[in-house]
């Protein structure tokens, strides 16, 4: 039995970088939302700046994965695993972009008069953070049951966003003369909601890795 030990070690190394990439994205999102509630422009700038590092992380993972494909000519599960690595990394990179977008909205809000930020945005971010942690577990253990469950949490995020959206547009609840703030907060909610979709994509990539078939969890 030849175990292809070097190849396995290389695969594991990429898998580990993807996991730490996911945690970095989670932190970026949390910081962006913290900056929102605390009106902390310094923290928002830090999130914007750090996005470069997240992009670099994605690049590194891409390069390492493509190199393994070229050098090791993987087939079957090995090949699907490497394709899943590329997809997951690309979803994480997009999630990082949304954290940056939130941070930009924070900066726009911070030059306007203060606005009571609805609790719903924090709640959404917390569900999304939970999704990231489950996605990491599903990815690490190649657990398709956990991967499928991500879609349920995404539905929760979607309906939270729907409610936020309706509340923000509800004239009785809207804070008068603060349309710009309302708009920015709807954007922020939308960015968090999009993050949920990307995590669901990660669930799909895990299903593809394990089963070899394409499944749409974003329905």
């Amino acid at each position: 039995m030849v175990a292809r030990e070097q190849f396995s070690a290389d695969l594991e190394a990429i898998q580990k970088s993807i996991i730490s990439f996911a945690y970095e994205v989670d932190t970026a999102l949390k910081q962006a939302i913290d900056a929102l509630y605390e009106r902390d422009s310094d923290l928002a700038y830090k999130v914007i700046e750090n996005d470069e590092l997240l992009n670099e992380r994605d690049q590194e993972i891409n390069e390492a994965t493509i190199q393994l494909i070229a050098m090791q000519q993987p087939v079957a599960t090995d090949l699907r695993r490497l394709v899943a690595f590329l997809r997951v990394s690309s979803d994480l990179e997009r999630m990082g972009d949304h954290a940056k977008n939130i941070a930009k909205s924070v900066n726009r809000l911070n030059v306007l008069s203060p606005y009571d930020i609805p609790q719903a945005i924090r709640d959404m971010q917390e569900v999304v953070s939970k999704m990231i942690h489950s996605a990491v577990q599903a990815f690490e253990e190649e657990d398709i049951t956990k991967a499928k469950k991500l879609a349920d949490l995404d539905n929760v995020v979607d309906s939270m966003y729907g409610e936020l959206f309706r509340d923000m547009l509800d004239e009785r609840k809207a804070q008068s003369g603060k349309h710009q703030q309302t708009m920015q907060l709807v954007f922020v909610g939308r960015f968090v909601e999009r993050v949920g979709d990307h995590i669901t994509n990660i669930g799909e990539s895990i299903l593809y890795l394990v089963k070899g078939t394409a499944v749409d969890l974003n329905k």
Partner: protein
Amino acid sequence: MNYTADKPTETRTEDELAASITRASKKEVVLDVKDLSIFYGNNEAVKRANMGIEKNAVTALIGPSGCGKSTFIRSINRMNDLIPSSRAEGEIIYDGINILRNDINVVALRSEIGMVFQKPNPFPKSIYNNITHALKYNGQKNKKVLDEIVEESLRKAALWDEVKDRLHQSALSLSGGQQQRLCIARTLAMEPQILLLDEPASALDPVSNSKIEELILQLKEDYSIVIVTHNMSQASRVSDKTAFFLNGDVVEYDDTKKIFTNPSETKTEEYISGRFG
């Protein structure tokens, strides 16, 4: 995560099995192998193999050394008859006839089902005579006809342009890759229906290798091809169907794209991923 082997073995559902059978049976079958067992003395080298080999397709036989794939391919044109202790059971139906029957004219069979071997083995004769040798032996004396067959066979084997000005030079002056294409041309001259290729490119350099692969893809328009190869990338590049052999068993036989992206059997996965063999 364990990357070494342990994809959970899932039992195929009846639907999946049916889908696999449908995939395997949508094209016309040129060779129908039924319960084929081949013995060397008491050793069963191929164990009750079943396989419908498709017309105008390339079927790759893969598996570790000693798995039975060469024995299998050699049985298709009765090359195993040359080994005294060998014995075959079951059937290989070609053109409605079981070619394992004792009353089969194996010389005629081998002109219908030609074979090319791992090591190029041209006769120590001119390029021209390599191709005409068997034809002359079979009574074809017409120079014009012979000339035509030589050109046509060499063209089909993608060798004509390289040798047309030196047809009467020794075949041994050709490079290894050219010699192998000459052997293919020599086989084509007999107008076979099926080409058996036993590791035809394993002794060749990468350029000659890719020429042989290109050639295989062209030839399948006119012939049905069965190829034994140890080169997994080659199998995935040239073949339509792949059969994985292990210890004399056909472990899995399916569309090549299925075998190389999502095989049904754990053993197949382990082998094509280079995890044993």
